[in-house]
């Protein structure tokens, strides 16, 4: 695996085909068809998450919860360890006649640090899985793609998909009901 923050795009004459669809329903149906046809290197783009699109695209469940769980448990364990170390090893002081390792009093900080690590894991894990930040991407060169954050519903099929063919894939997107289709240059 190369550096995670750089786009992993093979050089080629074009990045792929981009089709714009009228709405969430059209996008969903197009994605179902494209998955059934066996495409693998493709994506859908929408201004908001479209309900049911993960299933239509055949995406596997996100691995993010495992990252969060691991980090949250490590954070909590680390916090308990820190408090144990402070109060029994480094600064063993008897305060209000409590035992040195008075663990019930250590629960709040343990919990808070567990939440902190879990939240950091959720945010940075999500950005990592999504390979963001990635400020440059061939799709941004498209003239219509800026609508993907406004009211545009797009399907992009990448040119290194084994089933990609300039004419056939462009025609396929049109047949699926794309309002406009373009070939995005590689950049």
């Amino acid at each position, binding site marked *: 695996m190369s550096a995670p923050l750089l786009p992993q795009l093979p050089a080629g004459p074009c990045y792929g085909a981009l089709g714009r669809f009228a709405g969430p329903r059209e996008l969903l149906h197009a994605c179902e068809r494209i998955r059934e046809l066996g495409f693998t290197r493709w994506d859908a783009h929408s201004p908001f998450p479209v309900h049911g699109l993960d299933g239509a695209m055949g995406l596997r469940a996100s691995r993010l919860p495992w990252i969060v769980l691991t980090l949250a448990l490590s954070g909590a364990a680390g916090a308990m360890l820190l408090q144990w170390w402070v109060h029994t090893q480094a600064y063993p002081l008897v305060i209000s006649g409590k035992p040195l390792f*008075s663990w019930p009093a250590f629960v709040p900080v343990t919990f808070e640090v567990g939440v902190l690590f879990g939240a950091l894991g959720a945010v940075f894990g999500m950005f990592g899985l*999504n390979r963001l930040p990635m400020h440059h991407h061939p799709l941004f060169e498209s003239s219509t793609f800026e609508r993907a954050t406004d009211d545009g519903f797009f399907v992009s099929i990448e040119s290194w998909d084994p089933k990609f063919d300039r004419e056939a894939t462009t025609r396929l997107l049109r047949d699926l009901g794309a309002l406009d289709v373009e070939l995005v240059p590689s950049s």
Partner: protein
Amino acid sequence: MAPTEETPDLDPVRGRAPLILGGHDFPSITRAVCDPLERPTPSGWWLFFLPSLALLSLLGLATGWLFWEGIGIWGLNNPVGWAFDITNFVFWVGIGHAGTLISAILFLLRQRWRTSINRSAEAMTIFAVMCALIFPGIHVGRIWVAYWMLPLPNQMSMCPNFRSPLLWDVFAVSIYGTVSVLFWYVGLVPDLATVRDRARTLLRRRIFGALALGWRGSNRHWQHYERAYLILAGLATPLVLSVHSIVSMDFAVSQLPGWHTTIFPPYFVAGAIFSGFAMVVTLMVITRKAFRMENLITIRHFENMAKIMLVTGTMVGYAYGMEFFIAWYSGNPYEGFAFLNRAFGPYAWAYWIMVSCNVILPQILWWKKARTNLAILFVMSLVVNVGMWFERFVIIVTSLHRDFLPSSWDYYVPTIWEFLALLGSFGLFFTMFCLFVRFLPIVATAEVKAVLPAADPHHGEERVVLDVSKAPVREATT
């Protein structure tokens, strides 16, 4: 029948009243939220920003003199070692809680109306936590050793005591602030990309482009994004409940009558949400009007918030009553005295301001006419925040000023410097909020678009209506 505010057309997918009025579609929502950011600064904005900035300068004055001279400039005396500083701290942390309730708890409860107000409520949370963190920071007097609150290695053979709720508080509030910022930023990324894609100047494109991280609405990204958002909501929910519980333990774990009670954690959490929603209403009434967002932030949103204020206000009222009951029922003379002293002692004026503002006046919210009248709601939101500030003042000062030893009893009077610091914290809060509404999308457009009927992939399909009267009836056979 034409759709109006009273009788809107039903959402064709869900069969319920729509959340967004005015016939909005996807691009019109983008425009409604982004246009105000792209226009030249309206003169009305300065009308709010400059007074806020002036108030903020008071904070600089109050803290500057404090750092120079020490906390002797405050009116603190021997039994009353905590007063405005900790009152303000608890007040501001509490304000923040409504933002997290809206963004996390209502998300988990699938309250889809939250989408119109969650962005600004989360921003409010962050600014309130900033205000809150000032006061424990400055009340130590020697601000330059504030880092002693953290468990850092040092040459002094000294480490904070992890058995103390005051240290739990350091962790709880700073982590709460951090998680609130993360949650807010994750929610902002798709909208920052929207602003980036609309940008007409290179500077805007650069700034928002950098902040949007190259977001391109990919569904492979949305999948992880939605999962991250759900997990953050799931983490923020117990976090927000724990934060004010821990704040309440600053008091409840001590031995002082009036503080040492187990009702404190839930009572503080309810009070926090009560005052926080009041602050959301205060801000939203103005913002909605100023940005003409009547169709995105509707009367229904305000009514829902008023209902939450009514519920949490009733919980707070119950806690006031229950404190008195337990003071009597426990048979503990010190506890009994502390509460009689609260209601009829030297600080009775503060106690009755609190009861009037938090328990008596909010009863008006039982009426739908009051809940849907913005003028009444606005006044009520101010009243509730005055009441909730006094609640913390009453709890802190009345319990301290007459402790176990009558010879050390005293009466606390704040000085001008405490008032200036309080006003200055409002200055910080409103300055930050003014900057937020000027430079960032104040409504989560991606989320609002997702609650439009047209966002459902089944919108426009033939609806299967189950009509029992037309179903074939099988004759009973014997």
